[in-house]
């Protein structure tokens, strides 16, 4: 069996040979694809991170993440504290107009040590911190061997700019969270696949092939995280390491959306109109309310109820946007069912 490096080097060699050929199957100025009956699927267009770096940080040392690594005058920093497995920021960004499910296949590998008699680290299958209390049937004692419990986690980014600095800051502020079998995937020496580790909401593609405009949920953050034995029986050395190969796959996602109806109760001039956009939305989407045709002196109050008019508990918060003039705006976050939006306009 070829080693990983040899395989990659053989790939590199092929690349070298290719430079003298450099004749792809179709040219840069000809993007036309013949669509046959077999090709019903739409091209996937996403931006993924390159293979990056992660760190085993047995002592949970602090890591400072600058708000903008390219701007030395900006000294604002976020501190990653106490995390024993830390990776560089990884983000996947949807460049297409369709929602996408993200699946990932993860394969781990522990590096061999130069001293063949030395004991290498292990990739643990459960937390190294122990499970349950001593005496319980399912009790697992804390590990003492040189081992790390590593898993891949994802979360939807709140950022919609896609800017590296903004994503790094959000990544740094991502609080540590325990392994969740429903959401996370453990890095082991056998390949494992997690379907639906994230959903990328549709973006607004740019004309001409540039970067898309991201909408809420178009970007997901990923990280390798976990724990390890801080002071194992066999001490950590700087030679200890593991690799995690991540292979992402993307499939169009079907996301349930619920209707939004809107009405205006205008007790002032009686000419106000209301528009909620979009007219149907998935849970977590931001809905914008626009009330127009009112007097500049009017006051507008909003309420979001269930479709039958009954109240949500707790009530849905509506955040004011434009609060003056003859057109007013506000936003709210869509719950998991149909809603009715009412704007009450008073003189």
């Amino acid at each position: 069996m070829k080693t990983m490096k040899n395989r990659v080097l053989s790939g590199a060699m092929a690349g070298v040979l290719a430079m003298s050929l450099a004749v792809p199957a179709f040219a840069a100025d000809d993007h036309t694809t013949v669509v046959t009956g077999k090709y019903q699927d739409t091209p996937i267009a996403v931006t993924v991170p390159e293979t990056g770096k992660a760190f085993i940080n047995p002592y949970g040392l602090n890591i400072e993440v600058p708000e903008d690594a390219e701007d030395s005058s900006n000294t604002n920093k976020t501190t990653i504290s106490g995390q024993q497995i830390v990776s560089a920021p990884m983000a996947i960004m949807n460049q297409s107009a369709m929602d996408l499910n993200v699946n990932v296949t993860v394969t781990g590998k522990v590096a061999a040590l130069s001293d063949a008699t030395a004991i290498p680290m292990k990739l643990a299958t459960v937390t190294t911190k122990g499970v349950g209390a001593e005496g319980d049937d399912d009790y697992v004692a804390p590990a003492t061997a040189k081992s790390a419990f590593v898993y891949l986690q994802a979360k939807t980014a709140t950022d919609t700019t896609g800017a590296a600095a903004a994503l790094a800051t959000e990544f740094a502020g991502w609080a540590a969270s325990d392994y969740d079998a429903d959401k996370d995937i453990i890095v082991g020496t056998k390949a494992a696949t997690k379907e639906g580790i994230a959903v990328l909401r549709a973006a607004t593609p740019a004309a001409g092939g540039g970067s898309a405009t991201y909408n809420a949920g178009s970007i997901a953050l990923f990280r390798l995280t976990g724990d390890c034995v801080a002071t194992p029986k066999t001490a950590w050395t700087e030679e200890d390491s593991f690799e995690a190969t991540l292979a992402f796959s993307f499939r169009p996602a079907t996301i349930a959306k619920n209707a939004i109806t809107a009405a205006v109760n205008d007790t002032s001039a009686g000419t106000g109109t209301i528009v909620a956009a979009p007219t149907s939305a998935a849970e977590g989407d931001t809905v914008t309310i626009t009330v127009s045709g009112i007097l500049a002196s009017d006051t507008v109050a909003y309420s979001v109820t269930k479709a039958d008019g009954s109240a949500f508990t707790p009530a849905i918060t509506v955040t004011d946007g434009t609060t003056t003039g003859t057109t007013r705006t506000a936003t709210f976050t869509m719950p998991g069912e149909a809603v009715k939006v009412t704007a009450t306009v008073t003189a």
Partner: protein
Amino acid sequence: METPAETKKTPALSNKVVIIAATAVIAALAIVAFLLLSGRKENDLGIGYATEAKVMLDQDSLQAAFDEALRNAAEGNIGLKYKNDAYSSNGTDFECYIVNSEANKYDMFLTIYADAELTDQIFLSQLVPPGSGFENITLDHALDAGSHTVFVALTQVDTNEDGQQVIKHQTMHTMDFHVTE
């Protein structure tokens, strides 16, 4: 590997010119091969499709390594553009759609493996500039009838300030290859 269109020979070339040209091409390939095979990847990231995690036991080393990783991550995004499914009636010749996204800055080559452990390489491409790609590929060996999840490794190549070719970024995604009976 895909074969480029065959070029017509020019009978007027003398043997001497042919030899000189061939020598120049071989020399150029040897130089580039040395640079790539010597494992040069810009920013000293090493070659590999995997995220590598090393033990860091002191604050300064950890912070320095993270700072470097942060800088690399900032410019390490790779645009993917492809269709999930590729089809073949003989297990070797596939209709597909894999493009080096026009949003990318670098040429890339593809390496496709039939297994997650990356032991069974079934395709190795030529360099593909941004905006170009493949609609048909021929595998090194046939896949059996049925559907197969394959692992598509993308390697971007750049020319550094010294004019040397270096591996810039790498990433991996999967596709489904279907072989009909």
